[in-house]
């Protein structure tokens, strides 16, 4: 059984006098112990809201409704009361956020921000907690941890801050770590170090990792399984390699196609997906991606596309998917598909830690 099973998760914000917003609209995915799962999509596709809903961290407001199931190790996270949720947060499931500066309390020393987790979940106090905190900072690669414990966030560099946040997240050896765009606010060389650190931590401790990102380079380097989100729903799920080699959903195809390539000829234009994520069709009326889709057919509109389970455990939500290799491509499919998207995504991220997988072979 999977460590985390998210089933038909939905988050809606209802406002009087305004249209109800379906931020997350039936997301399902699962995470096995020790697995790295990616949630990928453009801004506004519901990836952050998904993670906040799982953690119970959505800002409380009237009109907010969370539906579906999220079973973590036998308990449905969405049904927990506030108290048990606080017990799980930080201990069994931890989270790393996007902007390390604003995510740290500016007026409290780093040390206390680390030890407060240890005190809360592991009952450690005083010198023992400080010693453990120093060990944690050391583990995430912060030099001179004893001195850093007394410092404040503004005295640390961006990369150090994110390392400190990671130290807080792994303090109780959680079984699941959710990283919400952990490298977006950092510059490229630091990004690489942070991703490398996360990979090491996950490998050493067997922690499962949900990686929320819009960066396909990150996905290519880290994730075992990838879920592509569009308009609050998972449109394609696949292992990393098949996804990059033969994306089936036209949106995935478009995402891969819009990655700039180093080996592109001069003057060659990028291949963006036309339109914006706001041009969506509500899911009940058909495929939300249809208004922007290059492979749109009449069947796209009318009712939501069913989930198609393909042979190798992958699934996609499309009535006219990009053809699997070996079949004759239809003209519409050829345009946005690049010949080797995985290589291009990884090349794009060369500065990133993630060397392109070793068994990579050129077709």
């Amino acid at each position, binding site marked *: 059984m999977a460590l985390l099973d998210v089933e038909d998760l939905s988050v809606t914000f209802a406002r009087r006098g305004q249209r109800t917003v379906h931020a997350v609209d039936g997301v399902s995915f699962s995470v096995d112990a020790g697995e790295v799962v990616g949630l990928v999509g453009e801004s506004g596709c519901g990836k952050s809201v998904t993670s906040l809903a799982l*953690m119970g*961290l959505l*800002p409380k407001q009237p009109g907010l409704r969370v539906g579906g199931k999220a079973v973590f190790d036998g308990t449905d996270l969405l049904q927990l009361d*506030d108290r048990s*949720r*606080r*017990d*799980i*947060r*930080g*201990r069994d499931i*931890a*989270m790393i*956020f996007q*902007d390390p500066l*604003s*995510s*740290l*309390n*500016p*007026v*409290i*020393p780093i040390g*206390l921000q680390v030890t*407060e*987790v240890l005190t*809360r*979940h592991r009952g450690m106090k005083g010198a023992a907690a400080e010693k453990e905190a120093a060990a944690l900072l050391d583990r995430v690669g912060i030099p001179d941890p004893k001195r850093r414990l007394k410092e*404040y966030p*503004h005295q640390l560099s961006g990369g150090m801050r994110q390392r400190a*946040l990671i130290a*807080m997240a792994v303090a109780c050896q959680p079984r699941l770590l959710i990283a919400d765009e952990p490298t977006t606010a950092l510059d490229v060389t630091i990004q690489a170090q942070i991703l490398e650190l996360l990979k090491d931590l996950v490998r050493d401790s067997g922690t499962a990792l949900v990686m929320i990102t819009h960066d396909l380079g990150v996905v290519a380097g880290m994730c075992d399984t990838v879920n592509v989100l569009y308009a609050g729903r998972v449109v394609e799920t696949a292992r990393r390699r098949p996804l990059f080699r033969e994306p089936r959903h036209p949106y995935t195809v478009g995402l891969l196609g819009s990655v700039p390539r180093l080996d592109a000829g001069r003057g060659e234009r990028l291949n963006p997906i036309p339109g914006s994520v706001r041009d969506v069709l509500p899911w009940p009326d058909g495929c939300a991606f249809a208004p922007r889709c290059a492979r749109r057919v009449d069947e796209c509109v009318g009712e939501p596309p069913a989930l198609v389970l393909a042979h190798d455990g992958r699934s996609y939500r499309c009535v006219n998917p990009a053809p699997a290799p070996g079949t004759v491509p239809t003209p519409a499919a050829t345009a946005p598909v690049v010949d080797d998207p995985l290589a291009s995504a990884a090349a794009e991220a060369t500065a990133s830690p993630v060397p392109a997988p070793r068994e990579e072979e050129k077709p």
Partner: protein
Amino acid sequence: MFRFIVRRLLQLIPTLFGLSLLLFIWLRRLPGGPETAILGERGTPEMRAAIRRNMGLDEPILVQYGRFVRRLIRLDLGTSTSTKRTVVTEFVERFPGTVELSIAAMLLAIGIGIPLGYLAARRRGRFLDHASVGGSLIGICIPVFFLAYVLKAIFAENLGWFPASGRQDPTLGATRITNFFVLDGLMTREWDAAADALWHLVLPAVALASIPLAIIVRITRASVLEVLNEDFVRTAEAKGLTESTVRRRHVLRNSMLPVVTSIGLLTGGLLSGAVLTETVFAFSGIGAFIYEAISQRDYPVLMGFILIIAVVYVLVNLLVDLSYSLIDPRVRVR
């Protein structure tokens, strides 16, 4: 830190110099003068001129100012033209009353304002929130002296719960040491005297606290609402910390910065608000005395008192700046 304090105190010198020059000119430009106050309607022009010459008021204004500054350097603020006692004596006797009143008012405003503002933010959009926001609007709008009269009429004259005037019941014969009546009572263990002085403080303090209270409620509320949406509060929640730890350690402390600033600024307003409140409650502090001094054209008293108030104001704001660095490491002074 030490250099910061010294620098700030040195900045005080040009400030006081400028203020004293302005004050000097303004006061001398007021129509009438001490001679009219002393002689009243009966004085002949010759008598007035004699008094003016006697006081040195017939000399050019810059000469007068030069004499004032020379005396000021020796810490001599002169003698009141109306009470014939030295300005310093008057000040030492009266200032403690105003300080007591201001401290009482500020404690009320902070003690009620911060918790109320915090709760209003937590219960945003509910009854308590609307009540405190609406209430604070009323608090800001009502003139202090009017509120003072209303309080006095209801709670002192009609209900008789509190004394209507004065700082202490003179029949108690309390011992005076510092002229801080509450403090004196505690030091001499004359508990009844301390309690009585405290009792006399209630109504004037409530009247005086109304505006700072209203402002502190609003600033606290806005600041807490802002901090509640900060990313680091979400991080604290994500760590699974208990609600009380999140509130205390992460929300409250961060939301105190703007409140502390406003407390410093409000303290200045408190000293001027005291003028009206003290007059209504016949509370013998500097406020009532300054009011009197203006109508008497008592130049030495006005000059001396206003300059000392300016010094106090600067010192309070220096304290505020120092307390800043206790709260926020980013502005820690070097």
